[in-house]
C-alpha cells in the first residue's frame, strides 16, 4: 500500500521538477521548489514506514521545520530588488 503513495509522490516530484525547469517566471520556480520540499517530507515519512524503521522520522521533521527558510531567503532577495524599482501603475 505504501508503494502507491510513494509512486504518486515520486511522479509528482517529477512534475514539480518539470515546472521548475520550464519556469517561466522566477516565482514559478520558487513555487516548484517549495512544492518539492513538501513532497519530500511526505516521501521521507512514507519511506521510513516502507523500510520498517519508523524511528527515522527525524529527517522528515528536519525538512518540515527548515525547508521554508530557502523560500524566505528568495523573497528577501527579491523584495529588496522590488523596493528599489519605481512603482508601476497598471
Amino acid at each position, binding site marked *: *500500500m*505504501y508503494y*502507491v*503513495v510513494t*509512486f*504518486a*509522490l515520486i*511522479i*509528482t*516530484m517529477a*512534475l*514539480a521538477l*518539470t*515546472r521548475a525547469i520550464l*519556469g*517561466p*517566471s*522566477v*516565482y*514559478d520556480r*520558487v*513555487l*516548484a521548489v*517549495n*512544492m518539492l520540499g*513538501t*513532497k519530500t*517530507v*511526505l516521501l521521507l*515519512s*512514507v519511506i521510513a*514506514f516502507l523500510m520498517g524503521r*519508523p*524511528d527515522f*522520522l*527525524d529527517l*522528515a*521533521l528536519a525538512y*518540515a*521545520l527548515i*525547508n*521554508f527558510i530557502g*523560500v*524566505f531567503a528568495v*523573497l528577501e532577495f*527579491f*523584495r529588496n*530588488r*522590488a523596493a528599489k524599482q519605481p512603482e*508601476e501603475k*497598471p
Partner: protein
Amino acid sequence: MELFLDIASWILMSLGGVFVFIGGLGALRMPDLYTRMHAAGITDSIAPILIIPGLMLQAGLTLASVKLLAILVFLLLTGPTASNALASAALLAGNRSEQVKSTAVPESEE
C-alpha cells in the same frame, strides 16, 4: 479492529496520493502563476492532512505517532505561510494574473 484500522489508513493514504498527483498536475498544466499556486498550495495542505494520519494509524500509539503529529503541525504552519509570502512577493513585483503574459517579469530583467 486491526483490519478496520488498516483499511482506514489505506483509504486515507490513497486519497492523499490522488490529491498529491492532482496538485502536481495542476502545478504543471495551469495557465498562469496564481492558478498554479492555487493548485500547489491547496494540495500541499490537504495531502499531509490525509497521508500523515494514515501513517499514524499504522504506527499506533508510539513515539513515531508523536513525531508524525509534529510533522503535520509544522507542515500546516509553513506551507500556507510560504504560499502567502510567495503570492504577495509576486504581487508586489507587479505580476498580475489576468495579463500575466505581458507583465510577468521576464527572467532577463530579474
